[in-house]
């Protein structure tokens, strides 16, 4: 069993190293035909002279190619800006599509072979590492989590965090350097949507892969708990179908790309003009998508959260939650449980919610009136500020990159505006609570330690109080790891939630004073 795991780990690392190695492969040759094909005609005229030295030259990696392209591109824009020719400044992202079109070599010639040598080996290795755990008896297996460098902020964990952060920065801001990875998944993208793979398709593919493979790990780890298995199966299903395959198939059918389970304000560009226009120009289906999205946000969220709490979305359906509950499970214990962290969390997450609501209001104002300016505020710059700071940096770079530092729910806890919104429902009007079983708590701390949202669950359990918290995503791990069966996720009459600690803990017959 142990040797099989070691072999698995070795194969996984081989695939991983090969995958990272592919970044440096291939040849990149810019031709006039590529520029004509990829650039808008007006931009072709402007950029062609600056890119002249690159044409016909063959680069041995995407890095040199991308750097030269960006330098030339930046120089042109700098000139426009210096001459105050604001209308000429080019905002389109050309580096990625041009690099993709300019690529040649083994990755384009033997794509499938390299797909299997990278992703294939990594999947095989991961499964070989995970499946032998079936030989262990079912039950809570958290042995050595705090002895391992990977899961206790040791050098391995820190390295993984650096890798994830670099990955996200590349994905959001420098996709031209990741072009080789998109080539690996290009056949899949063409099969699904008919389009070449963008960096977002690549991201969706890796994301889904991570949820599925690590979901298998989760299913094995918690195979004694039907709650955990169903919940994990649910996030695996929603990610694979709703988030990954269905939107691509919609595109193949010439319909708008749409994730039917993504909800405003997490889906912050739902009300952006380009999105509304796309939906409204797509007939009945487009209108349905618009109504569906609005109904999810304003009808389904309050109703379902009233009945089941936040969990129906955050730990059963959501993509961010799906990744956190699978890929992020080994890091759940790293969330900060201090009172101070809770205070920061409340300010931060509700500020993001306010920001998202205000931004959406401005965007809609612009949509209906055609006016970009509201007083001194420009709705276009507000949305780009939100997109950069919240959409890219917070939810992506920090949200996932910080898994090995601050736990797997950094984004959900400190940043997600939808989590903040559902949290208000859960806190003030919901049937959901985590019940404390009489006076059974032994204050051991497993529940708090393994709470990914940083809730000090023990604080409630040891005083005989139910856990009623805006942030609780209902993952149920506190109940699973409790060695004495003290905690249970339940839905019942909202007024039956014990939100004030009993004066005398259950099990003591001494009279109450009050």
């Amino acid at each position, binding site marked *: 069993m142990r040797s099989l795991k070691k072999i698995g780990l070795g194969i996984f690392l081989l695939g991983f190293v090969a995958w990272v190695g592919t970044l440096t492969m291939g040849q990149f040759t810019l031709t006039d035909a590529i520029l004509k094909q990829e650039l808008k005609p007006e931009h072709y005229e402007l950029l062609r002279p600056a890119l002249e030295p690159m044409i016909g030259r063959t680069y041995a990696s995407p890095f040199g190619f991308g750097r030269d392209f960006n330098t030339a591109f930046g120089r042109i824009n700098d000139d426009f800006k210096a001459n105050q020719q604001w209308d000429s400044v080019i905002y389109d992202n050309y580096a990625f599509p041009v690099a993709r079109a300019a690529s040649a070599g083994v990755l384009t010639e033997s794509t499938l072979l390299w797909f299997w040598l990278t992703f294939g080996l990594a999947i095989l290795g991961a499964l070989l590492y995970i499946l032998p755990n079936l030989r262990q008896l079912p039950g809570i297996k958290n042995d*050595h989590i705090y002895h391992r460098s990977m899961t206790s902020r040791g050098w391995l964990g820190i390295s993984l965090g650096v890798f994830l952060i670099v990955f996200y920065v590349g994905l959001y801001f420098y996709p031209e350097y990741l072009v080789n990875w998109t080539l690996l998944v290009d056949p899949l993208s063409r099969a699904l949507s008919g389009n070449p793979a963008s960096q977002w398709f690549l991201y969706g593919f890796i994301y889904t892969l991570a949820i599925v493979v690590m979901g298998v790990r989760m299913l094995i780890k918690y195979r004694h*708990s039907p709650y955990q298995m169903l919940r994990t199966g649910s996030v695996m299903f929603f990610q694979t179908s709703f988030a990954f395959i269905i939107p691509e198939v919609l595109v193949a059918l010439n319909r708008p790309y749409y994730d039917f389970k993504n909800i405003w304000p997490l889906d912050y560009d739902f009300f952006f003009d380009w999105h509304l226009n796309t939906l409204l120009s797509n007939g009945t289906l487009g209108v349905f998508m618009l109504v569906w999205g609005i109904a999810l946000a304003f009808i389904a969220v309050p109703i379902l959260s009233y009945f089941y709490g936040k969990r129906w979305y955050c730990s059963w359906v959501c993509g961010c939650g799906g990744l956190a509950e699978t890929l992020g499970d080994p890091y759940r214990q790293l969330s900060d449980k201090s009172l101070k962290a809770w205070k920061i969390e409340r300010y931060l997450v509700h500020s993001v919610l306010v920001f998202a609501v205000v931004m959406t209001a401005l965007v809609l104002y612009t949509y209906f009136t055609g006016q970009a300016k509201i007083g001194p505020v420009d709705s276009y710059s507000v949305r780009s500020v939100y997109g950069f700071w919240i959409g890219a940096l917070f939810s992506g770079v920090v949200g996932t990159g910080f898994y090995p530092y601050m736990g797997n729910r950094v984004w959900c806890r400190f940043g997600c505006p939808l989590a903040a919104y559902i949290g208000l429902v859960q806190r003030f009007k919901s049937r959901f609570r985590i019940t404390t079983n009489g*006076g059974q708590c*032994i204050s*051991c701390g497993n529940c708090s330690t393994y709470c990914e949202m940083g809730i000090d669950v023990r604080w409630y359990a040891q005083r005989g109080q139910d856990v009623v918290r805006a942030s609780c995503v209902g993952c149920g791990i506190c109940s699973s790891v409790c060695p004495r069966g003290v905690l249970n996720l339940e839905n019942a009459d909202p007024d039956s939630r014990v939100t004030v600690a009993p004066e005398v803990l*259950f099990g003591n017959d001494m009279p109450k004073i009050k």
Partner: protein
Amino acid sequence: MKHIVILGNGIGGITTARHVRKLSQHRITVVSGETEHFFSRTALMYLYMGHMKYEHIKPYEDFFWAKNRIELRQAWVKSIDFEKKELHFAQSTSEPLGYDILVLATGSTPSYFEWPGQELPGVQGLYSYQDLERMETAAPRGTSRGVVVGGGLIGVEMAEMLLSRDIPVTLLVREKSYWGNVLPREESELVSRHIREHGVDLRFGAELAEIKPDASGQRVGSIKTTSGEEIAGPFVGLATGVRPNVDFLRGTSLEVDRGILVNKYLETNLPDVYALGDCAQHREPPAGRKPVEQIWYTGRIMGETLARTLCGTRTPYTPGVFYNSAKFFDIEYQTYGQVPARLDADTGTFYWEHPEGRIALRINFEKETGAVTGFNACGLRLRHEVCARWIEQQSTLSHVMQHLREAHFDPEFFRRHEPAIAAAFRAAHPAQASSLQGKRSWRERWFSF
């Protein structure tokens, strides 16, 4: 305002301190040599196994104590001068600490039975934080074998700890079955099977005779049983029970038997001196209770009670229906009321076990009235309030069987065992048969299990 000094920062002492603070403005000082802060003793095993770090088993953040004006003093107490009302510390440079009211919450200490070689390095019990630190160094990964002596809760904990580091374990149990003086035969067998399932070399009727040093003579090398068998093991865990940690109080004016003798108000024979928790011995224990009860929950209940008395409302110790819990590897165990290992003639019992042998429920009842008296649950979570209420109100077994769903506390989507239990009950007690009430879960309705 009085100065209340609490000796011991375990669950009993700390519960007293917290509740005194809630009820009064008295000055509170908690003295302990073991650790600066309160930690959950029951969670020590998880540190060795790497589930948690020390900071995680502290139930309150460090700022809590100053905020609540609970002074902490980390020092070992050597002796107590009850005349002058002073504590004297082991470190001779420390000034004595005076008190107006003294609460003794000194807990337990592992009991050894004068085995030859028990003082050898590599031989230890598991009670204190220092024990855990010693075990970290005495039983690292790669240790060839650990021999654990004692068929109780600490014994199985030590076995689980050692196995987490792939150290083979031999568990010696003097009795004929695991925890046989507490668990009825079926539960004992169920747990024994599970311990063996985890690969523990579990031996019954095996008594420790002698602990022998290794070739170097510097540390333990093997043990010998009373039957003459020798088992090699460079680590020996002694889990043969605990006794009140009161040796330093013997020979003083304080009345001490096995533990510090207290009345139902937790008062000792000396004025302004109280004792509670593991170290206390009740002169008149409440009905059905033992004089010395070394249980987390009772320590806490005594603390809540004593705080009342210290703050002016003299309150007797009145624990409710007995309850306790444990976990044997993967099997959780809960007990409510009285479920003795051996039944008396007036008590009947109903026992159900899942065919896979890891889940069981036992309900004891008075034969004459049918009133339920106790529950044992293995691998099954029951609702504390409901079980305690049934026992308190002397509900009959057939009533409990009808309403069994109310006691269900397993997580959602777990397999519901009530129908199988009810069917077993109908087979065993056809005369009392009545149908199971309450709403069926969706799983039962759709998939009929």
